[in-house]
């Protein structure tokens, strides 16, 4: 009975760890308990980092829990007498230096991913000059929905002919897409699990977001920062389409937008 406890301290944490490991290895039916499919080119490095830290964590978990339950097992033997060792410099140096090395290693390793995802800003070439790519879409978060603004016929954002669409974002695949996000009321968060993107949208603090999708797919945009009672319902669709389809779509939107404007104008003049 006494030794049963040491088994409990082995089985429960290690059992949890094993289930997690099977999920990470993609073994059905546990495969749905791991990261959702990734469609962002730079997101792959996030997945690698997430996987690597989990490998480190799994090794440490199995090692420490194995030791813990082994010591508990041995310590439950009746005839055993306790050790009086309360200090061992060499051991203490080793168990400080090895974790320090691992942690510093992880800290250095994650730089590449952070660099790829956040520190590098997409560049583009125009008129023979390379410079930062301007945003194609302005995203406005509000309680409880998303507004997306595209440049109108003048090709510029924040002008009178901007095309406005609610809760549907359509962007081309195979190229860097830059979004400018801002909030109209409270803090929201622009979260697309399938693109490995999350950015708090803070009122008064416009920000840039970018990604490059490889594949045409439809994803969900959700809000990840509490914004009130309708927080759950604050979602939008994200449609990633090939460039040609995107061009057709945006032309259509511009036409519709113009037609709508013209209708409003004529309505206004007839009144």
């Amino acid at each position: 009975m006494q030794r049963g406890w040491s088994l409990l301290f082995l089985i429960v944490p290690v059992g949890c760890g094993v289930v997690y490991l099977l999920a990470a290895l993609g073994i059905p039916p546990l495969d749905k308990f791991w990261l959702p499919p990734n469609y962002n080119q730079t997101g792959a490095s996030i997945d690698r980092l997430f996987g690597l830290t989990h490998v480190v964590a799994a090794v440490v978990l199995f090692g420490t829990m194995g030791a813990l339950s082994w010591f508990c097992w041995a310590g439950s033997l009746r005839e055993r007498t306790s050790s009086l060792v309360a200090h061992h410099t060499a051991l203490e140096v080793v168990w400080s230096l090895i974790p320090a090395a691992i942690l510093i290693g992880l800290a250095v390793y994650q730089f590449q991913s952070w660099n790829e995802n956040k520190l590098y800003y997409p560049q583009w070439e125009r008129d023979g000059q390379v410079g930062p790519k301007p945003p194609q879409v302005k995203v406005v978060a509000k309680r409880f929905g998303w507004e997306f603004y595209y440049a109108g016929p003048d090709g510029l954002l924040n002008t009178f002919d901007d095309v406005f669409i609610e809760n549907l974002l359509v962007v081309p695949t195979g190229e860097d897409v830059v979004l400018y996000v801002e909030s109209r009321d409270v803090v929201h968060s622009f979260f697309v699990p399938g693109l490995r993107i999350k950015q708090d949208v803070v009122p008064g603090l416009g920000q840039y977001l970018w990604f490059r999708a490889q594949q045409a797919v439809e994803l969900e945009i959700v809000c990840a920062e509490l914004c009130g009672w309708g927080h759950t319902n604050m979602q939008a669709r994200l449609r990633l389409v090939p460039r040609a389809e995107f061009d057709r779509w945006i032309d259509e939107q511009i036409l519709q937008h113009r037609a709508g404007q013209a209708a409003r104008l004529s309505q206004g003049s007839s009144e």
Partner: protein
Amino acid sequence: MTSPQATAAMSENGRHATGWWQRFVFSRDHKTIGLQFLFSSLIWMVVGGLMALAIRWQLAWPWTEIPVLGRWMFAAEGGQITPQFYNVLFTMHATIMIFFVVIPLLVGAFGNYLIPLMIGARDMAFPTMNMLSYWLMWPAFGCMVVALMAGDQGPDAGWTAYPPLSVVYGHAQDWWLVGLVFVGISSMLGSLNYITTIVQMRAPGMTWFRLPMTVWGLFITAILQAFALPVLTAALLMQLLDRWGGTSFFVPSGLVIEGTDVVTGAGQPLLWQHLFWFYSHPAVYIMILPAMGMVSDMLSCGCRRPLFGYRVMVVSMAAIAGMGFIVWGHHMFVSGMSYLLTVSFMASTMLIALPSGVKTFNWLATLWSARIRWTTPMLFTVGFISMFVIGGLSGVVMAAPPADILIHDTYFIVAHFHYVLFGSSILAVFAAIHFWFPKMFGRMMNETLGKIHFLLTYVFLNGTFFPMHFLGARGFPRRYADPYVVEGFRDLLPLNQFITWCAFGMAAAQLIFVVNFLGSLIVGQRAEQNPWRANTLDWETDSPPPHGNFAACPVVHRWPYEYDNRPGRPDFVPQAMALMEDDNAADECDSNRGVE
């Protein structure tokens, strides 16, 4: 402070001739105040726990009638939770568990009860201030009850209360803010008292490196509180001013609220986040360092061997506390903070894992070659260590900002902090209650019930919190009243139902504890002075100790970890036991260490 003569007179008759009110209600005795904190926290824990169950119910069976309480609480809605009240629930669950349960249990209850006993003092340095620190909790309780009475219109901006949501929309937010200001003042009085008591009133011979780890944990925690809390209190007052005083610390200009423009100054929502986390990250350590200290003491006692690496443990505690002040930005990796600043917070966060890891290795080394007595406190202690490992490891995963992009504000975070707060802090509290119950009430708790309680709690807590990692890896966000509105999360419903079943199992297991606790108060076996055969000074006096704590002032001769299980040797040597040499320290005793 009274004269030595008065102190001597008091230790003769044990107590002042005081009335019932002064003895049990407005008492200045640190032990009574500690027990008051204990009882009020345990009651609040029931309230906070019921809220957690309501949250779990909603996530497993959204928009269905809540059993038992639903019909009474939400009569108008057919017994189901409203989206507004769901936000109130998680806001108040966190607020209650952090400010009314975990901190008051560790710091208020055990800090008050154990510090004077363990350092050999007759009471705290400032007994009246100590009494105030408890009674200032009551206005805070009152504020939160009023806030809760508002139902749907209660505080719903999360315990993090990010503006502009909390300032512009926050319901009953003022009650919440004022309540926390009271908590802040209460903790501040407590922490100043603890620091003074530990610095000034240690028994003769109680050098710094003879202090039990419990006292070290509480001492470092008190310093953390003294430095971090004023920042939170100031931030709370700033938010109050933003709501009522026409200031604009946190609200930017250009907001459009309900279709109309709001004219405000150019405040900074991120300023609140910085101020809030500057307190609330150290608060994480406030909620774990005392637990680490108590666990170290109970572990050494249960292993019947000296604590491994005592000095290193003290240094790593201090390192955790010191570094705890420069890691707050890891709560803000995706907040819009500078991407370069993020890198420095990442580095400090990675490094803070190191002292925590070192402490774990020291506990493991203490377990190595031990002669373990599997008492209930020992089970909870080892449970603490194993859960702390899981909570610590998930912390390393999220310390890398790129990984945090995905898991920030998801259930991965919820899993992480419940492993640390419930899996570690609360297990340590259960260990400590079982361990010091005989000292507090003069009776033992039932061991069989204690072990069943441990087994069920341990299994169900893992069943509840471990699968939350899976939810988080999928991107399942926190604070969603109905996550299944999102197509991508619909297949996670069965997993959530599993979690909820485990949560109900865990709650049911706590009934065993309630029965054991209340029953042992009345019919528990009478406890001897030192039932665990422990070394610290608290076991040198009666169970429960008289007013003034010690008949004669103890003199300390050694550190508290002299356990030895070899045949023919004394099993343990208490700190106050003199062997060969004699100190002259006894003469210092009781001079300038008075008691009210």
